[in-house]
């Protein structure tokens, strides 16, 4: 039989549950209130609007591609940060965290300088390939990637940090080259961290508004379309679309967490 460690005092736990309860109510109340004030008829009418559905699909597409890019670009950097030391490492770490500290309107404006009509990359890509980052899915993805990549790098790094380097070493001695060790030992063992990061990146991407609306107002992502409905038709239509979009995003978020942590911990597992 396992003895239980001394439990914290009842009064302490009670006080903390009170504080936590206030917080949970604060988080859930606005969302529930918004959902409860919808009528089925209104939800059906807004759901039938083609541009609403297109905006939701676009948001999902863009967030999905962003998450893929975050994996391809962010996971290698996470590994470097976890496993190596190099001059300027703390500067690299600060740069990775930087997007969290910049207002997203500022991100959008800064991205215009590089990917806009007169921006270095924006103009060059337009001249060479005839592709534009304004008014396209590409613009949306760039804005999403900037504001959400931090989560993938940092969470994957925590995942890599937790992998015992001796497992990688022993794998090498067993005849596996560095790439095989990375794909067969390191990544499977760091998978929870990587998946957590990708999930957060997806969630952050799908909810991005500020950077997207400045870089590329069209095509409209769901948050932009909701804003558009709010300006044109007020609270009724915009809140109906908000509830539809929330339902889709939440379902996906829960699915990802389920994949990452399995049945036991879904949907609220440890991050």
């Amino acid at each position, binding site marked *: 039989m396992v003895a239980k460690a001394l439990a914290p005092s009842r009064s302490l736990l009670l006080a903390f549950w009170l504080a936590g309860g206030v917080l949970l109510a604060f988080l859930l109340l606005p969302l529930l209130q918004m959902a409860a004030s919808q009528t089925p008829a209104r939800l059906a009418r807004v759901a039938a609007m083609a541009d609403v559905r297109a905006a939701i699909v676009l948001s999902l597409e863009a967030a999905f591609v962003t998450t893929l890019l975050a994996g391809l670009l962010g996971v290698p950097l996470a590994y470097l940060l976890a496993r190596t030391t190099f001059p300027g490492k703390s500067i690299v770490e600060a740069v990775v965290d930087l997007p969290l500290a910049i207002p997203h309107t500022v991100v959008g404006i800064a991205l215009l300088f590089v990917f806009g009509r007169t921006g270095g990359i924006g103009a060059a890509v337009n001249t060479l390939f005839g592709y534009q980052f304004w008014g396209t899915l590409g613009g949306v993805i760039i804005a999403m990637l900037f504001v959400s990549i931090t989560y993938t790098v940092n969470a994957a790094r925590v995942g890599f940090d937790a992998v015992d380097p001796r*497992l990688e*070493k*022993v794998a*090498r*001695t067993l*005849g*596996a080259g560095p790439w095989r060790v990375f794909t067969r030992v390191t990544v499977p063992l760091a998978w929870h961290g990587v998946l957590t990061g990708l999930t957060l990146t997806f969630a952050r991407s799908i909810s991005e508004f500020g950077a997207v609306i400045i870089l590329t107002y069209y095509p409209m992502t769901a948050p932009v379309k909701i804003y558009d409905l709010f300006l044109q038709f007020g609270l009724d239509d915009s809140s109906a679309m908000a509830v539809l979009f929330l339902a889709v995003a939440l379902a996906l978020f829960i699915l990802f967490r389920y994949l990452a942590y399995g049945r036991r911990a879904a949907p609220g597992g440890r991050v």
Partner: protein
Amino acid sequence: MSAAVELERISLSLGAFALRDISFALDSGDIFVILGPSGAGKSVLLETIAGFYPPKSGTIKIGGRDVTSAPPEARRIGFMFQDYALFPHLTVAQNVQFARPNGDPAHSRDLLARLGLAALANRHPANLSGGEKQRVALTRALAMNPALFLFDEPLSALDAPTRDALRAELKSLLRQLGLPAIYVTHDQAEALVLADKMAILRDGELLQVGTPAEIFNAPASEFVANFVGIETVLKGETLAVSDGDARVALGSCEIHAAASRATRRVLVCIRPEDVALSRAPGAGSGARNRFDARVVEVAALAHLFKITLDCGFPLVAYITKQTYLELGIAPGARLTASVEAADVHLIPQE
């Protein structure tokens, strides 16, 4: 015939730490124990042999092949880390299969069966005992057909009874396999039980290489003497050497050592278990060296008693509980301490 493993003047710098001129050779089937305090560079030396650190100079040959610049995966080394570093996300069978990715899984199963692990094939490492982990790690390494085993203190995190049992099993498995093995540890008991050959490592340098008997009984330096548990190490001055007998002055006393040569200044080494104690001045063995001794301190060890004596020079003896009770030893007691001349080892100074 060339040696199974040969290191020739391996040097390496790693920040403030350095390996200096490490050389030794092993025959097939040799278990070579490298004993050293923590920070001596034991793990760095093993990982250099395995190919994780490129040496600044020197050569490493395994099975007659120069592998000095080969990557770890091309060296055919079975590396046994502490706790054995089994892949936690793979089953026992998958762990073994990892070492031979293109091999027939049936062969891995045969190998597991040979080491009595067939029933564990589908378990994950978290559900294995210490002994099972050891055997799985050995099987996994064997699947890659190693030319050399390296052990980095694999047993040091275990409790004493488990450690003893696993050490014995490891030794018999290594005997059966007949492969050379290098085993690093800070535990002298480990060296005594396992080693065919051993060395003392300090600050990245091999101080002495030899059989366990040579190193434990005839250390070449004061550090080695202290490290292998020689409690009495004293400065002495050689008075005369004749017919394999050296007379050495220890302060106002004189001690005989079996030696055919000696420098003028020497360090006199006496292992604590080579000191015999008796009540009567005339009783006991016919040892050449007998001293009137006063008990200064008594301390209980795990299985023995440590008696610190004053014989005109300090002397430490280990005795059994039975002797301790028979002699009624207590601080202040007067005894006779005797030591065979053959058990007195002299380390030349200059």
